[in-house]
């Protein structure tokens, strides 16, 4: 929002309201009717706020199909003492950081590439965004076949070159990272799009001036492009980190949290407990996930937004 425009608007409003009797002033004030809020607020309260607040209560109970008994923080104690639940917590953090970090870095450089004068730019932009459209389940099934350790195409190619053929989704040490790779493949398109918007918004004069001053590619990158795309970077970091922390679909369809528990994350554990009918425990897991995301995101987004450079 430009401050100049706001000032002018306020001045204009003052002039108008001075020239008109009080009834007109009241009319202008109600130009932005409060009732515009109501439908959105209604949906939000009923389907979001209400369940979220009641989940705090229910996470403190043992909840079955029929009754709920209050058990205090036992669900949480169980959650953090159970080794497999605890490791899923760690996996969630690892997964979120890796996917988010990769999307930011790869997305940024791809955006640089796609905003520079190269051949086939229009085609490249379309192709990179395309995986975003494919259903997550479809992507999961597709890669499960491509990365099958014994029959998959990827390992066939690797074998042809005499390279090792790992069990992408079946090796306990590799499973989580393979899934992260697929997630990045699918999601890098959106990151690139947002970065492209940020880069294109930088006025051309800045680049002109830098070039006239004799600055090379790297210097321009460091001193103009990166600082002036802070807004886009912040957006990508926030969106991808939140998505990574809450990720469920792609993990569930490729490994179901396996082999064993080696690729379980909070969201898949919550789902398994819900499936088994441990509703209280599952809701407690939801609360833990909520706290985790809030504790990470609120300070982070405050930090990122403060560092924005005004254009």
């Amino acid at each position: 929002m430009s401050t100049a425009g706001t000032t002018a608007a306020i001045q204009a409003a003052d002039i108008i309201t001075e020239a008109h009797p009080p009834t007109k002033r009241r009319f202008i004030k109600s130009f932005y009717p409060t009732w515009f809020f109501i439908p959105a607020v209604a949906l939000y309260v009923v389907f979001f706020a209400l369940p979220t607040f009641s989940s705090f209560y229910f996470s403190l109970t043992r909840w079955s199909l029929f009754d709920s008994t209050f058990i205090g923080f036992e669900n949480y104690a169980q959650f953090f003492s159970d080794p497999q639940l605890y490791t899923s917590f760690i996996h969630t953090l690892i997964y979120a950081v890796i996917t988010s970090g990769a999307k930011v870095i790869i997305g940024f450089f791809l955006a640089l590439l796609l905003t520079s004068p190269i051949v086939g730019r229009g085609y490249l932009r379309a192709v990179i965004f395309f995986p975003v459209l494919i259903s997550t389940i479809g992507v999961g099934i597709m890669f499960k076949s491509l990365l099958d350790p014994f029959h998959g195409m990827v390992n066939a190619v690797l074998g042809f070159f005499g390279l090792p053929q790992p069990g992408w989704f079946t090796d306990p040490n590799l499973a989580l990272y393979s899934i992260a790779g697929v997630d990045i493949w699918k999601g890098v398109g959106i990151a690139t799009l947002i970065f492209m918007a940020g880069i294109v918004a930088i006025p051309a004069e800045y680049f002109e001036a830098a070039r006239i001053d004799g600055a090379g590619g790297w210097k321009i990158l460091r001193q103009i492009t990166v600082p002036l795309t802070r807004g886009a970077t912040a957006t990508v970091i926030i969106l991808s980190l939140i998505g990574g922390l809450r990720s469920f679909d792609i993990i569930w369809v490729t490994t179901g949290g396996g082999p064993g528990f080696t690729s379980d994350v909070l969201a898949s554990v919550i789902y398994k407990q819900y499936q088994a009918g441990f509703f209280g425990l599952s809701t407690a897991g939801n609360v833990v996930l909520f706290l985790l995301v809030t504790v990470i995101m609120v300070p982070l987004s405050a930090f990122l937004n403060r560092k924005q450079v005004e254009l």
Partner: protein
Amino acid sequence: MSRQRTRAWIVGIIAIIVSAVVFLVPFAFVLLQAAKTPAEASNLAFSWPTHWQFLQNFWDTLTSNDGVIWRAIINSAVLTITSVTLMVILSAMAGYVLSRKRSKWNPVVNFFVLAGLIVPPAVVPTIWVLQDLQLFGTLPGMILVEATFGLSFCILLFRAFVGNIPRELDEAAVLDGAGPVRLFLQVVLPLLRPVIVTVIVVQAVFVFNDFAGPLYFLPGDQNVTVQLALYTFSGQNLSFYNLLFMAIFLITIPPLIAYIFFNRQIVAGITSGAVKG
């Protein structure tokens, strides 16, 4: 100058080849599998089908299991269109007022909007609410839930963009005798077109491909959506990989069509400098 042109060509060609391998080959694999016989498809090899039966598989997949794939596409389409329409209208209205109106409530509202983005939905209590409203396991219930979950993202975007529209336009319209609703519909909304397009595309893709939502809130074979159908289809057709991949292909078609339609609009909207982070 020509050194720059050669560089443009070389980098371009490398990028095209790499992108084709990374992004197009997997999809080519899907298409090839979708054209094979069941026995050949279960080999999972990246090979040309010896017996090309694309149309046969197309028909079999569509009619398999009572046409579940087809029903899923219809359900998902209805769900997507209705919930996206609902959330766009509601959040445009809310974002508009949020941006324009100076109120001491604004920081509070902003906090709740951000919370809606961060906080994961509390599943079981939401099921309870839906059950109380007799909406659990119904498409209207799912529509309302999807619309609610999309509100935050849309409101944030709309609020930012309305901020870019100068207030003088509002004043001018008022002077011309416009009422508040007409001001919104005929002056502000048209100027928000790039945002609306962006929001529609992003949210439509999200809702269409939502797996966890219908998994929890929309059980039942009649209501099956695209992701869920594909998931159960994969479990049922253990020996029919060709049909499975055909199903993946079929499910990719609607978003693909939408993308081809709106592609130019998105890129134009975003690269016109409208988004400032």
